[in-house]
């Protein structure tokens, strides 16, 4: 099995993005922006619905709701109920979903808010109104992150190779031992 196989697996598949926003206008716009950027999109209207979709709401039976793995979560900050920040925290606290990049969107450029989100593990913070250039840049960031992951795993030596290396040494050792015994 060639090591090269590991890097080609999912680099060409589409990103599935979960977009969370309480504004129906913004949901429509972000959905369009993501579709143009060749992403699959699921939109939900609240943080609570987002958790339900992911199966994180404590209701064990609901994890069957999603049929596609989510690769990126984009969420508004100011939402009634669970804010974008609280949603971010819940996702980063979950062992199943903490690896999913989360991006926060907000109409307000409040530095402490941005820092708080980045500290909690947000991938990026977008200022609304979100433009196509923002989404394209975001997609590149996420895709590059994915490729870096695959690069990392393909550089690891496979167990088979380790075994092959060890057998090689054993054979050499054996030959040397036999030679020494023969000489003596």
């Amino acid at each position: 099995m060639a090591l090269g196989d590991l890097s080609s697996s999912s680099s060409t598949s589409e990103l599935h993005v979960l977009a969370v926003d309480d504004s129906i206008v913004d949901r429509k716009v972000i959905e369009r922006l993501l579709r143009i950027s060749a992403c699959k999109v699921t939109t939900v209207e609240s943080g609570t619905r987002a958790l339900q979709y992911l199966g994180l709401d404590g209701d064990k039976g609901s994890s069957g709701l999603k049929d596609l793995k989510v690769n990126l979560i984009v969420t508004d900050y100011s939402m009634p109920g669970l804010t974008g920040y609280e949603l971010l925290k819940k996702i980063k606290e979950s062992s199943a979903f903490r690896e999913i990049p989360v991006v926060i969107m907000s109409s307000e450029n409040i530095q402490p808010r941005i820092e708080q989100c980045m500290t909690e593990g947000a991938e990026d913070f977008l200022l609304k109104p979100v433009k196509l250039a923002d989404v394209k840049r975001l997609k590149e960031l996420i895709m590059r992150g994915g490729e870096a992951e695959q690069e990392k795993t393909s550089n690891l030596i496979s167990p088979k190779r380790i075994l092959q290396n060890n057998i090689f040494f054993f054979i050499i050792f054996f030959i040397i031992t036999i030679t020494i015994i023969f000489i003596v």
Partner: protein
Amino acid sequence: MDAHVAQLQMQYRNYILSLYQQGFLDDQFTELKSLQDDGTPDFVAEVLSLFFDDCVKLVGNMARALDQTGTVDFSQVGANVHQLKGSSSSVGAKRVKGLCINFKELCEAKNYEGCVRCLQQVDIEYKTLKAKLQDMFNLEKQIVQAGGIVPQVDIN
């Protein structure tokens, strides 16, 4: 027939430019238009329709909240203003957005008369914009019916 199409297209161009010059629209509207293509020819119309529905709902909420004379919940009014500011910003409704910014300050100051006046202005403003954009869509329809294509208008 070509002369008629050319005339309609010029009328359309001038109309769009005037909407920007008079501050009705800003570059977010341009951005929305750029997201529309032959595969999604109704995208802008759909977004605007959602926006105007939102306006009706939010203005209604604010009117009801301000109607509670003596016990007005200004944070409730403010929350609705915040939502309207967000959606008007997302569609490029510059004047509506500007009014919302003032409105927010009036809510924070708990200025009852100011809020009531501002709400009236918001109501007039979004209805005016709705009528103007309807005229724009009608012009587009006329151009297409006359066999022409709707021109891309360069704002700069």
